């Protein structure tokens, strides 16, 4: 266990300022043991949240979180930090709503300011069919007690005065799905908070260590892997670890890791590009999303506009930026907000998204005993991070699939029971 980490508070800040004492590290760099109860591959939001809830809710602390890079260096630090729960399927709504409620109390729970800003979320409709889908989503949401409604262009203008709601644009705004509980969170702080919390409970966070293979015995596939097998551990670039439970919490590389256990996935990996402008005075009070224009935009507390788009159409692991993206993005954003034409882009980047056929994740047990999945997070992994960790920890601790994730098992692809979450990311489909 070790001693409790110092509590972050105004008093602690003043004390450290006066004494100029060093702040202790948020998490340690432990020596890797040769066996753990649970090995989690991927030290991003999902892996660390799973480790944190395993320790916090279930007292399982003999856990290693292994990453070939550094904490939060993948999708956790590349997303556009939007959270919401106005999805389309009842399964999705219940799941993401739990995540939103965890985000709301997170700063207290983790004793770290994650800068959660509940600022409202607008999904614009530019066509009659989009408006119909917005009504559909609003009704599904209301049925489950989610604050979500369809508003007209005049109300849209009140919510976000910088939007052009006139009828003279190429894609006039016909209305929007308004979701007041949606907002943005500082994504790095969320990852650090979970890492610090997990480390405090004694979880080992092992960075710069690559998993080279997953050891499976007794399976029906080549090398004893695949269905019917049982996990015995992992082989890493720093040696072997034996563990009865191995969890794949990777994004971007999920298929490659899963193939090591002989469990193929229904995933194609696509890059998704995002960009941020220079900072300016805060003028955009809500998160604005347009499916038809393939863009979502929010303004950070620093005043930078953060833009995201839909995934690139060609599956690839290459994450370079493209001029086509920048041009299209600028055109679409100016269509919505002509007033920002003089703003300059600060930078653009991309991250890898594991796209599944039904825009829902793949979670829970697999045909290989002891090998669990938390993959296929496409464009919605950040929103789901806390609840994914909580439910996966429950699944590991109890040996029974948690109710909230039972629709997302890998067996749905063999049973033909897909979830069809077309409210995901609200962009590109």
């Amino acid at each position, binding site marked *: 266990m070790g001693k409790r980490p110092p509590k972050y508070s105004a008093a602690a800040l003043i004390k450290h300022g006066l004494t100029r004492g060093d702040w202790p590290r948020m998490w340690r760099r432990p020596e890797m043991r040769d066996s753990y109860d649970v090995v989690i591959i991927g030290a991003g939001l999902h892996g660390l949240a799973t480790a944190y809830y395993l320790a916090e809710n279930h007292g399982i602390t003999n856990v290693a979180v292994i990453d070939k890079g550094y904490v939060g260096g993948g999708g956790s630090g590349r997303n556009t930090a939007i959270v919401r729960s106005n999805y389309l399927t009842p399964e999705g709504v219940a799941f993401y709503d739990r995540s939103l409620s965890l985000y709301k109390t997170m700063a207290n729970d983790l004793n770290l300011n994650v800068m959660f800003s509940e600022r409202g979320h607008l999904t614009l409709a530019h066509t009659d069919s989009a408006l119909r889908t917005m009504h559909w989503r609003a009704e599904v949401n209301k049925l489950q007690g989610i604050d979500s409604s369809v508003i007209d262009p005049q109300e849209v203008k009140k919510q976000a005065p910088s939007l052009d709601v006139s009828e003279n644009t190429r894609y006039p705004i016909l209305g929007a799905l308004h979701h007041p509980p949606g907002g943005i969170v500082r994504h790095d702080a969320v990852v650090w908070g979970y890492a610090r919390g997990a480390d405090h409970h004694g979880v080992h966070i092992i960075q710069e260590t690559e998993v080279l293979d997953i050891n499976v015995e007794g399976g029906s596939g080549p090398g004893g892997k695949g269905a019917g097998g049982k996990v015995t551990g992992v082989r890493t670039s720093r040696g072997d670890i034996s563990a009865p439970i191995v969890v794949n919490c990777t994004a971007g*590389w999920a*298929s*490659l890791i899963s*193939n090591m256990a002989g469990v*193929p*996935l*229904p*995933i*194609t*990996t696509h890059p998704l590009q995002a960009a941020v402008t220079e900072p300016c005075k805060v003028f955009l009070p809500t998160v604005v999303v347009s499916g038809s224009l393939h863009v979502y935009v929010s303004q950070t507390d620093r005043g930078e506009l953060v833009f995201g788009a839909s995934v690139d*159409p*060609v*599956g*690839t*692991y*290459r994450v370079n930026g*493209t*001029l*086509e993206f920048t041009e299209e993005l600028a055109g679409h954003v100016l269509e919505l907000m002509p007033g920002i034409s003089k703003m300059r882009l600060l930078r653009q980047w991309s991250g890898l998204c594991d796209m599944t*056929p039904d825009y829902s994740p793949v979670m829970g047990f697999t045909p290989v005993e002891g090998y669990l999945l938390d993959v296929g997070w496409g464009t919605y992994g950040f929103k789901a991070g806390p609840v994914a960790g909580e439910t996966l920890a429950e699944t590991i601790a109890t040996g029974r699939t948690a109710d909230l994730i039972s629709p997302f098992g890998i067996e749905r*692809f*063999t049973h*033909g029971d897909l979830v069809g979450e077309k409210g995901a990311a609200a962009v590109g489909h």
Partner: protein
Amino acid sequence: MIIVPCPNCGPRNSGDLRNCGENIPRPDPSTASLVEWREYLYMRENPAGWVSETWYCRGGCRRYFTIQRNTMTNEIRGQEAS
């Protein structure tokens, strides 16, 4: 930008075509089990490296063809109409 060599239209920007995904042997629908058929429909190799895939020249000749592409570098080699 990815330049895709259409056998009919020559090198084109990938935006003019549609990537139809990796090539997977199609089981015989009359004899395949449900599990085999759904694996064909959904499961993907998704390799980090060379992959054999189909493209559709939607903005040009509307032909389907096969190429090899490296998913780490987007380098392309070989093409044949299918």
